[in-house]
């Protein structure tokens, strides 16, 4: 069953006299108990979409439902059973950890004890600091507290707006582990992130770019749809090599990826010969090249070009 349905949502902002399109004709649906990733660079429209779905923002046109409830007409019911964690830390920094959590539990007519099981994994990590004011917590701990507060009323759908931005690698990993545990509890999770490497951790992802959806699929499906043979190339004279590769007509695209250059070819067959030919023509040292499987970022790059 579809838990979140978005149909032809449009949203524009007027900044001075210019109109800026944040979302143009977005449609997708999220099934119950799914981790749905919204992946895209800054300014792709992720936060606007979340604010529309959490009933904080009105779309210009289109229709959206959460748990079968209309985000415009039945916002009251929606607010009672969703959890929202905004991208910016927005808890009371002058209240303690425990006071914050109690406050949000009481607003939703529940207690910490009643839903302790749900937040235990996360909250137990910050519990030693429960008497500390939340403004004095570290970034990772703040995120954990914010997630606890978003979860304390046992929401059916959880909206997480860039929860991993600015969080260290260990905390990121922990957060994703927690999300998978929450998924087992039957909570539907919508998560946005600018990090492509997190896409693989979602059940399905929507790739966003400039207010448009480039593709919606499982991470594996997106990779499977990648049409081009892909090679990784490395040399000491990387810049010259890249320029030489870009001149080659059979090359679709070529971009830096970590310490390698990823080269996508237009057609299958004979890639190795083409590369060897390019390398022979120049003077490159410590050259390495081998075929690779595409990852989400490669897919995003190629989708962006289209």
């Amino acid at each position: 069953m579809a838990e979140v349905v978005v149909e032809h949502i449009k949203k524009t902002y007027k900044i001075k006299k210019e109109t800026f399109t944040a979302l143009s004709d977005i449609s997708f649906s999220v099934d119950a108990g799914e981790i749905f990733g919204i992946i895209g660079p800054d300014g792709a429209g992720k936060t606007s979409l979340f604010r529309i779905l959490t009933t904080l923002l009105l779309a210009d046109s289109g229709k959206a439902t959460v748990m079968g409830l209309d985000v415009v007409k039945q916002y009251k019911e929606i607010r009672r059973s969703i959890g929202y964690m905004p991208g910016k830390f927005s808890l009371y920094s002058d209240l303690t950890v425990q006071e914050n959590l109690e406050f949000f539990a009481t607003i939703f007519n529940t207690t910490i004890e009643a839903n302790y099981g749900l937040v235990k994994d996360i909250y137990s990590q910050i519990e030693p600091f429960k008497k500390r004011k939340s403004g004095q917590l570290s970034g990772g701990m703040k995120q954990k507290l914010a997630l606890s507060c978003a979860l304390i009323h046992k929401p059916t759908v959880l909206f997480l707006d860039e929860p991993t931005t600015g969080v260290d690698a260990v905390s990121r990993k922990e957060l994703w582990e927690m999300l998978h545990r929450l998924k087992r509890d039957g909570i539907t999770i919508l998560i946005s992130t600018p990090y492509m490497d997190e896409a693989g951790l979602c059940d399905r992802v929507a790739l966003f770019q400039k207010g448009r959806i480039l593709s919606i699929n499982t991470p594996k499906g997106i990779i499977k749809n990648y049409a081009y043979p892909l090679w990784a190339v490395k040399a000491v004279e990387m810049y010259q090599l890249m320029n030489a590769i870009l001149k080659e007509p059979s090359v679709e695209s070529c971009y830096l990826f970590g310490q390698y250059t990823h080269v996508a070819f237009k057609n299958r067959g004979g890639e190795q010969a083409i590369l060897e030919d390019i390398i022979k023509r120049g003077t490159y040292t410590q050259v390495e090249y081998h075929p690779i499987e595409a990852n989400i970022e490669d897919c995003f790059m190629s989708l962006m070009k289209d």
Partner: protein
Amino acid sequence: MRVLMLLLQKELKQISRDPSIFRILFIMPMVQLLILPLAADYEIKNINLGVVDHDHSEYSRKLTNKLISSGYFKLKDYNTSFKSALHSVELDKTDLIVEIPSQFERKLVTENESTLFVAVNAINGIKAGLGSAYIQSIISDYNQEIRLQWLGHPSFNPQPTIEISSSDWYNPHMNYKVFMVPGILVMLVTMIGSSFAANNIVREKEMGTIEQINVSPIKKFQFILGKLIPFWLLAMVVLTIGMFIARIVYNIIPLGSYFTIYLFASIYLLAILGLGLLLSTYAQTQQQSMLVSFFITMIFNLLSGLYTPIESMPVWAQIITKFNPVSYFIEVMRMVMLKGSGIHDIRYHILALLGFTTLFNTWAILNYRKRSG
């Protein structure tokens, strides 16, 4: 109700943890109440007088002495020409020149009349107005004295004179502090009421915490009441401290009952807090709300009758003061404290304030949106 209690609890916790709020709320008003009424003195003494005496007669000397002995004037300059007297006005040494013409005494005796020239430096309008009023009454008093002296027998007085003697009611000693302190108290309560609650809401906007409140089932009126009540209480506490200072320091004991004052203050605060809330729904940052509330309270205070009597304003300004809640409170404070007015006497003021309360708060609630367009 439960949610409201929770919000109040949260708010009071936050207020109690903010040391600057306590400093601003209690120390500043006290300082203002201790300094302002003493400094804002309307009575003008020590007007510097310059005398140009061309006559040098007994009569001119008598007049000069009478002016100086009145206590309002200080003889700072004694000149032989008007020009040099004017020069000392230009140097700000004197504020007022009395020029006594030559043959002042002679003309007075032989022709029964004489002239005097009074020039006033009107850069400070209040000082000039009061100075010339004082000098006129002293001169007319002097005139009266001379007449009586000449007539000798009052029974044959051909010209009956009416002497005006006045008694000042409600403030018999014309103590301006009695008049200023209640007004300054109102100003303080207004400043706290209009800016604190507004800033607090805008702070939630700035911090982003309002987002979390907005996605929760908290209702608009609960949120707004949760903000109104704590600041209403704080302002009441400040009012109480102010009344206490007025009683201890200035010995101002209201003639009317404290109950009337508190009843009116509680309605007044609802109106002013409503205004603050209204500002907060429009402002996006604390700077915006601070500046706007500063601007509005300044205009309200200046048009409230605290410094300049409303009756002396032009008609259009008097109409504006009808839309100024501060002017009602200042009037009521003075009525209750000095005249001992009761609830019945201020019923129209109460009605007007209830109107402001309804207007500001309804507007604020309508304009506060949990979601944006």
